């Protein structure tokens, strides 16, 4: 079973040279720590920053330089700053090649729910609805099951949707899945996790074709 760091590390393998990438809050943020060698990517933060760098050295943090999670960050040489309308023009206009975000539920038709639990959690969708509606390439980073052991990889989402038919790939603590043809296709297993364990943790239709390799790190 993968740790959150390993989920991020596996997603980082999907990065391609010269991509602009938007990372959501939580596990997705960690992807920035595992950029493969020889690959140049730039991180876009939807509050108005391209070329986002690491956290500032203690004592140099600046209240006017934060990421979308409201954390103090830095800007790299060659980075740029802009307003929120231009930021979402980059996103809606598909100038950002990859979006990585978390989810509470994903359905086999690509629907995603990650912003609201009716009557309980009211936080808002932030930029997630704009991101999932427009991005060509979305990878979801999530735990395969919830704290009660129930599957979050579903036939249909039960929570209010963030977007419809938009998720193409999922990396969980158990597996890498492709989402197409109204099914989840099992591509890779986490080290030491069996196909049967993944099947048990998956409520949606899971397609297993041939030998399923273990993830390589």
């Amino acid at each position, binding site marked *: 079973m993968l740790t959150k760091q390993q989920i991020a590390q596996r997603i980082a393998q999907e990065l391609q040279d010269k991509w602009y990438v938007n990372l959501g809050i939580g596990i997705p943020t960690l992807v920035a720590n595992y950029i493969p060698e020889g690959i140049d990517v730039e991180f876009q933060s939807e509050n108005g920053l391209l070329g986002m760098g690491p956290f500032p050295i203690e004592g140099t943090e600046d209240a006017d330089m934060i990421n979308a999670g*409201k954390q103090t960050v830095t800007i790299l040489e060659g980075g740029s700053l802009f307003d929120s309308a231009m930021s979402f023009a980059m996103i809606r206009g598909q100038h950002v090649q990859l979006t990585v975000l978390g989810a509470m539920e994903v359905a086999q038709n690509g629907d995603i729910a990650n912003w609201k639990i009716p009557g309980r959690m009211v936080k808002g969708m932030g930029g997630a609805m704009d991101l999932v509606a427009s991005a060509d390439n979305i990878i979801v980073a999530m735990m395969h099951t919830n704290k009660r052991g129930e599957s979050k990889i579903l036939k249909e989402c039960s929570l209010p949707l963030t977007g419809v038919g938009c998720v193409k790939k999922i990396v969980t603590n158990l597996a890498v899945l492709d989402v197409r043809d109204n099914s989840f296709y099992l591509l890779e297993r986490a080290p030491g996790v069996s196909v049967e364990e993944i099947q048990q943790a998956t409520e949606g239709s899971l397609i297993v074709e041939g030998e399923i390799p273990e993830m390589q790190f």
Partner: protein
Amino acid sequence: MINKVVKNVEEALDGVASGMEFMLGGFGLCGIPENCISELVKREVSDLTCISNNAGVDDFGLGQLLQKHQIKKMISSYVGENDEFERQMLSGELEVDLIPQGTLAERCRATGAGIPAFFTPAGYGTEVAEGKETRDFNGKMHVLEHAFNPEFAFVKAWKGDTAGNLIFKGTARNFNPMMAMAGKITVAEVEELVEVGELDPNQIHTPGIFVQRIFQGKDYEKRIEQRTVTPKS
């Protein structure tokens, strides 16, 4: 040059009244009009509709207006950092319109740009699109979203000149430029107010035409919401 300077925040908020619709710049606590918010708290205006990406934290930013029950309706994209907000929303005391962040930014921009409505793919198939016109463009579904109509917009800039030209710093720009365009009366508070000629016209983010009142702000706290650092090695 047309002079936009007002003496202080009291003069800048002349005409503000209960029941009005306001826009307030900022993302989280970054780039919020601190002086204007404090003055709104002091004036005890109520039944306000506030359009702002976030709602502050419990004791700072728009949280101060929420604590005093001055806000009737919030229009935001994300309000996760504010317990009092969540309590008021779940109990039904506070009306809340949660909308996608890019849609919020574009609705602000549209307001100031004379565009009454536009189509966006964001929110199609979700509860955000309920009751709204939808349309297929190039095989993809879109939702019709409308401009706002705020009486006042309150924005915060790093530097401004007496003609109302504004320059923002870092990610404190965020929603401020679009909201500056959108107010019937736009009030800009700045960390540093300078004479005309001192700002390079090539570097102006918001031209003074959009700003009706500008004043030198004071006592900026610029609170950091999530202080994340790399330890000194």
